[in-house]
């Protein structure tokens, strides 16, 4: 008789929970095979001919292995290994029946949960897997008992096991010594979100701007910094081919840079974007990320494209002077314009130069041009022709920051003022809960820098001339209402929720995912400098574990809960206790009246009280005495001083 037993659900249910997040990364056919296997295991068909399927399972195992090899070209490692593990687990599921099999399945399930973290360590995933682990544990409990436990009981016990384990797990997590430098690099993470690229063409930034993804978070050491006032520098673009701006390919020796005023300290947590840029505001003297290096254009680059979340601390000066003298080669590069493009813009620039204006005045003129002519700041600019700058400046006059920065730079170069385009981020959102700034891809920006004698490179943001709100209040304020729908902006009422969630997520990233050797050292140093040594960690680990396990054993191994005695019994116990102090002990099997008789024989002077108390007690505990007499009993016992 094919019967649907609860034991099967305990087998399949947790596995399903464990495999669900994996389906995002597994080849589709493996997910499908896993789903099929589970359905088959639950179905009554399985039970009917479970034993006759041995050959079938063998065939499936071999073909599955072959399939995995074809898919991943390996049977090991984070991709092939996990695929193979999932397949084998489902095959094992098909022959699992007894308690022993269940135990093995549970252990494999725990392992499967872990493999998810190779791909996905997000908070929600972790919570999901914690639930899965609880269900696995509950299923273990449910099948270990001789009669099937009700699922509620099993879940309760599984949950309480997890909860009781949590303090010890956290202690181990904090104090277990971490390796100094992870081997790393073995894991291929998902294709990273897009970020700033090393080139800029009309539309490239505005594409980026539609993304809601977080670029990085900035946490300032001192309070009161307005993160929106900062320009986070990304790639600096020199070369223009008429259509696209590129970074300069030539490496330059370090240029002179002089910080001015007070330094600013902040920490950046950069999300993986598969780009090497490390956004930094101002002139940074120190970026503590292994392999991070600076270029002559104040760009900071990581050793390789950022594929995991990175955190680095920065000391920077917002006021600085850089490259006060420009080498001829660099000057030529900063004035270079492609031939045959944008004659109108070049003519305009030359005209300004011909009027004998100073470079500052030329820049002013350009900004005034943007301000006075009917320019529009929009995410939806019309397509431009071959002479993109001319088209923009004299015809469409609708554009986004990359249009303005590009056009401005072309005008400057035409007027003989060395200029370059800088891309990066500007703006951001303050999280008042975590007191840090969130900068999203949406805040991507492009601006220009011109070189002035003695002052070096000076930032000019032509977008500010057209849409001052963009600079002061952020991208949402700068855009016309019609464009806002393109931004993927969240509803306003969701804002506090989003900020809270971001705060939690950031904490998760910082303290759980980012808990590495350095974080550990820093945290332990705050707690006590002696903890930072390996010896200190191990000793404190042992001591802490001993305390926690001691507490757990106290909690669990104290004599089980006896049913609470009722109130008369408790009061009577107090009476007995007082008599016991005078040497009169009631035997465990001695009735109250018998004891009273014996007590009175030994302490005749107490006869009246003992009799009154005993009869009240007997009446309350065994008889019909009204509850009102409880107070009387209480009073008598309180005053009973033998």
């Amino acid at each position, binding site marked *: 008789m094919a019967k649907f037993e609860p034991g099967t659900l305990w087998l399949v249910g947790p596995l399903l929970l464990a495999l669900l997040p994996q389906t995002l990364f597994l080849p589709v056919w493996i997910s499908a095979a896993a789903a099929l296997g589970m359905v088959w295991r639950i179905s009554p068909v399985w039970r009917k001919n479970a034993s006759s399927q041995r050959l079938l399972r063998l065939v499936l195992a071999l073909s599955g292995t072959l399939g995995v090899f074809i898919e991943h070209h390996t049977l090991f490692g984070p991709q092939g290994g996990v695929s193979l593990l999932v397949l084998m687990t489902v095959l094992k599921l098909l022959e699992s029946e007894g308690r022993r099999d269940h135990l093995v399945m549970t252990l494999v399930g725990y392992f499967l949960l*872990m493999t998810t973290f190779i791909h996905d360590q997000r908070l929600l995933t972790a919570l999901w897997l914690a639930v899965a682990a609880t269900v696995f544990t509950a299923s273990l409990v449910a099948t270990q008992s001789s009669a099937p436990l009700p699922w509620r009981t099993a879940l309760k016990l599984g949950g309480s096991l997890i909860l009781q384990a949590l303090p010890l797990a956290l202690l181990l997590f904090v104090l277990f010594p971490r390796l100094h430098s992870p081997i790393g690099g073995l894991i291929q993470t998902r294709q990273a979100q897009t970020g700033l690229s090393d080139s800029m063409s009309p539309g490239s930034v505005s594409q980026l701007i539609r993304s809601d993804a977080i670029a990085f978070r900035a946490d300032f050491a001192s309070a009161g910094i307005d993160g929106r006032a900062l320009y986070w520098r990304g790639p600096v673009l020199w070369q223009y081919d008429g259509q696209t701006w590129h970074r300069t390919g030539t490496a330059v020796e370090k240029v002179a840079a002089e910080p001015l005023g007070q330094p600013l300290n902040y920490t950046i947590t950069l999300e993986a974007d598969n780009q090497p840029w490390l956004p930094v505001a101002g002139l940074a003297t120190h970026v503590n990320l292994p392999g991070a290096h600076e270029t002559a254009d104040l760009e900071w680059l990581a050793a390789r494209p950022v594929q995991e979340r990175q955190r680095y601390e920065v000391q920077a000066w917002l006021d600085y002077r850089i490259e006060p003298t420009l080498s001829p080669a660099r000057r030529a590069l900063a004035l270079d314009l492609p031939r045959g493009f944008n004659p109108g813009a070049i003519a305009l620039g030359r005209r300004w130069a011909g009027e004998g204006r100073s470079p500052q005045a030329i820049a002013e003129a350009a900004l005034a041009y943007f301000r006075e002519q009917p320019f529009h700041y929009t995410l939806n600019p019309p397509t431009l022709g071959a002479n993109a700058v001319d088209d923009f400046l004299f015809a469409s006059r609708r554009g986004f920051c990359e249009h303005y920065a590009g056009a401005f730079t072309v005008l400057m170069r035409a007027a003989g003022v060395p200029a370059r385009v800088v891309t990066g981020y500007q703006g951001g959102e303050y999280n008042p809960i975590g007191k840090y700034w969130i900068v999203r891809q949406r805040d991507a920006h492009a601006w220009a820098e011109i070189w002035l004698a003695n002052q070096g490179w000076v930032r000019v943001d032509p977008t500010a001339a057209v849409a001052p709100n963009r600079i002061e209040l952020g991208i949402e304020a700068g855009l016309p209402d019609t464009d806002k729908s393109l931004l993927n902006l969240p509803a306003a009422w969701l804002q506090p929720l989003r900020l809270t969630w971001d705060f939690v997520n950031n904490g998760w990233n910082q303290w759980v995912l980012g808990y*590495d050797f350095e974080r550990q050292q820093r945290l332990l140093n705050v707690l006590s400098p002696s903890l930072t040594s390996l010896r200190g960690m191990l000793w404190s680990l042992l001591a802490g574990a001993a305390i926690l396990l001691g507490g757990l054993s106290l909690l669990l191994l104290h*004599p089980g809960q006896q049913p609470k005695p009722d109130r008369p019994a408790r009061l009577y116990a107090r009476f007995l206790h007082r008599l016991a102090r005078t040497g009169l002990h009631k035997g465990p099997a001695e009735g109250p009246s018998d004891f009273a008789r014996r007590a009175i024989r030994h302490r005749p002077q107490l006869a009246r009280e003992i009799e009154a108390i005993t009869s009240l007690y007997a009446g309350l505990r065994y008889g019909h005495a009204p509850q009102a007499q409880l107070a009387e009993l209480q009073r008598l016992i309180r005053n009973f001083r033998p």
Partner: protein
Amino acid sequence: MKTRRLNLPWRPPDIEAGPIRLTSRRLYILPTRIGLVFAALLFGLLLASSNYAISLGYLFTFLLASVGMAGLFHTQRNLLGIVLRPLPVAPVFAGEAARFKLCVDNPDTRMRGALILKQGRHASAEADIPGRSSVELEITLTQPRRGYHHAAPFNLASTWPLGLFRCWSVFALDWGVLVYPRPAPDPLPFPASTGTGQGKAREQAGEDEFSSLRSYRPGDSLNRIAWKNVARGQPPLTKQFADRQGETLWLDWDAAPEQETEARLSRLARWVLDAERSGQIWGLRIPGKTLPPGRGDPHLKQALDALARHGEI
């Protein structure tokens, strides 16, 4: 006062009267084979976490390890405070299996899971005990020889709730089974009365066998009236029955044809059972013990008891 010594698993436990309350000093706990596999798995996970620098992997590994540790306490708690009471073991004949029933009492409100009673290769069925109740764990042990046999030490074990640790307690209870001699397989006629009995044969009014008719007396059961006579118009007669109760049967040690002690005891056991079944009044005489004539279950048990304990010092 007896000094309390540490219970060690390899030391044969002292014989106790019971009930036994399982305290922590009587409990041993070790990982099961699966528990060791689990430990190995954790070690692997830890290596993987540090190798791939998965911080969450550490957390998860530590969580699993801690669950295992919490499970250790839960496993110990599962046996802690339990009260064991041996139940009387019904006597058996040699060669039969005696059923040792241990009453396992859970005095607490929480449930106890998957308890199993073991002795050597023999094991009881597994049982859970709900809060504040008890179960009986039964283990059947074949008894080859007659006499009173003390049970060897038992152990009560459980791997509940996670199966990663096994907690157990070894105890030797003052507990045993009375094994009657195996009745001789072949029936033999009872020995002739040796004349020592008070047995003048008397016929006693009884119910077993029809013997005669007598005239009806008021109070006689209607069932006994010979209705045929009444139908013929004759005065009613009552049927008389007699119990077949001859002289007292003496089952004598010397009357048994066998020479060897055990064989004699087997023969007597067989006679005793046959005599009781025949409904006679019978007595038993073996060296060192004489059971006066009688009949009925207690009488039979006394006789078998005497046979079982024959030669006991």
